């Protein structure tokens, strides 16, 4: 084989070991499902404390964010995420980790230019695209309301 660029790329991709998809999916399902079930239990628990449902809806994700950020600080979150993959990434815990990890990591560059400026380097796109799509949706919804 001469090292033609296309041919080499195919050769490399064909021989590279594949991710263990089935095992990864099972781990993601169990951990991700577990986090969501835990959230659901929290939801019922807070309601039982006579907190209004409106507040519980905020309190549940806030609790998860607190715990995920704390575990990130203790250096435990990444050890779990290594096994759980999307199971910790997709729930709100992944968002909290994506905010807390650069904050902790960049403390060495100072509280303003390090922690302050770098906090959203990983999670920023989620907020940007979330806000962007929600504004577009709001505009369409407003037009729709006038038209109908």
């Amino acid at each position, binding site marked *: 084989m001469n090292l033609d660029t296309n041919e080499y790329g195919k050769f*490399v991709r064909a021989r590279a070991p594949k991710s263990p998809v089935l095992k990864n999916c099972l781990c993601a399902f169990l951990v991700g499902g577990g986090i969501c079930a835990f959230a659901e239990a929290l939801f019922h628990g807070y309601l039982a404390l006579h907190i209004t449902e409106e507040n519980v809806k905020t309190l549940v994700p806030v609790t998860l964010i607190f715990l995920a950020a704390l575990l*990130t600080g203790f250096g435990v979150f990444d050890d779990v995420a*290594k096994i759980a993959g999307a199971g910790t990434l997709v729930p709100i815990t992944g968002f909290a980790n994506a905010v807390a990890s650069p904050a902790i990591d960049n403390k060495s560059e100072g509280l303003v230019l390090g922690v302050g400026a770098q906090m959203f380097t990983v999670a920023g796109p989620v907020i940007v695209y979330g806000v962007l799509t929600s504004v577009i949706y709001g505009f369409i919804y407003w037009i729709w309301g006038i038209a109908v």
Partner: protein
Amino acid sequence: MRVLRLKNPPSVIGCASVVGGKEHDGPLGADFDLHDETGTFGMDTWEKSESEMQRLALNLALAKGKCGDDVPEVIFAGDLMNQCTGSAYGLLGFCKPYFGLYGACSTFAEATVLGSLLISAGYFKNAAAISSSHFCSAERQFRFPLEYGGQRAPTAQWTATAAGAAILSASGNGPYVTEVLPGMIVDKGINDVNNMGAAMAPAAIDTLTAYFAETGKQPRDFDLILTGDLGLEGHAITLELMKERGYDMTDVYNDCGLLLYGRSSQDVHCGGSGCGCSASVICGHIMKRFAKGELKNILYLATGALMSPGRLKQGATIPGIAHLVRISAEKNGWEG
């Protein structure tokens, strides 16, 4: 001709290796001079830790070589950090002429090539070659924050927390740097940052093929052919494609990235990488084997991926480079 045969082969008169905890726990652990289980080396940031590793490595190498104040006359050093700051801050206190190099993970071979050539040519009586990498500073710069929860691809490699320093001198009892072959930049279109071994393997193949073709030698003429940090994937690709070219390296070929960690017991996927990977393996493990007489003649080629995260986001592919150094126990080793 790309192979440069050194007229006055410089000798390695002192060398030292400094590693982190994971490297010390690996199969070569006992061969390293100094380690810090925490990887901090007493510093409060990872970047400072890496600089400290370079300082310690050079200090130790000078001490082990029983060198006076006149050594080294010049330093060639590099690391993976932006603007080569690991080396600049780490070596500031030595007050010696300094060349900062960037060859990514090929830096240690690059430094050895340049130092050897200038000593052989008579411009310097001695020189130091140093390079380092630190898992934590490399993660921060090239990948994600340390605490970020992500999964590594099966082809990914582990940046070694390691530094190696070697003192080369016009006089000494060996081992000697007898031949060098400066590598070319080779890009075969790989853009997967999680498969650096595959991105760098074509450069290693180019360098090795050029060496064997020009010298007429065969892989079996050497006790060991050692690449820097191709890891499991790059090692296998290099072996297979070299065989296709008529150079069967099966029994003599190994890779520093594979030697550094116990791949079954340590979670490093395809093996080690980073400037410090081959530097520490050469300065720790390989030089000890030369001293014991187990090795007489080896080819060491460190491979580097000359990429940056920014360029990759722009859609660039990953160019590789491989500089070759022949290390021989005898001064006229190239005759053998």
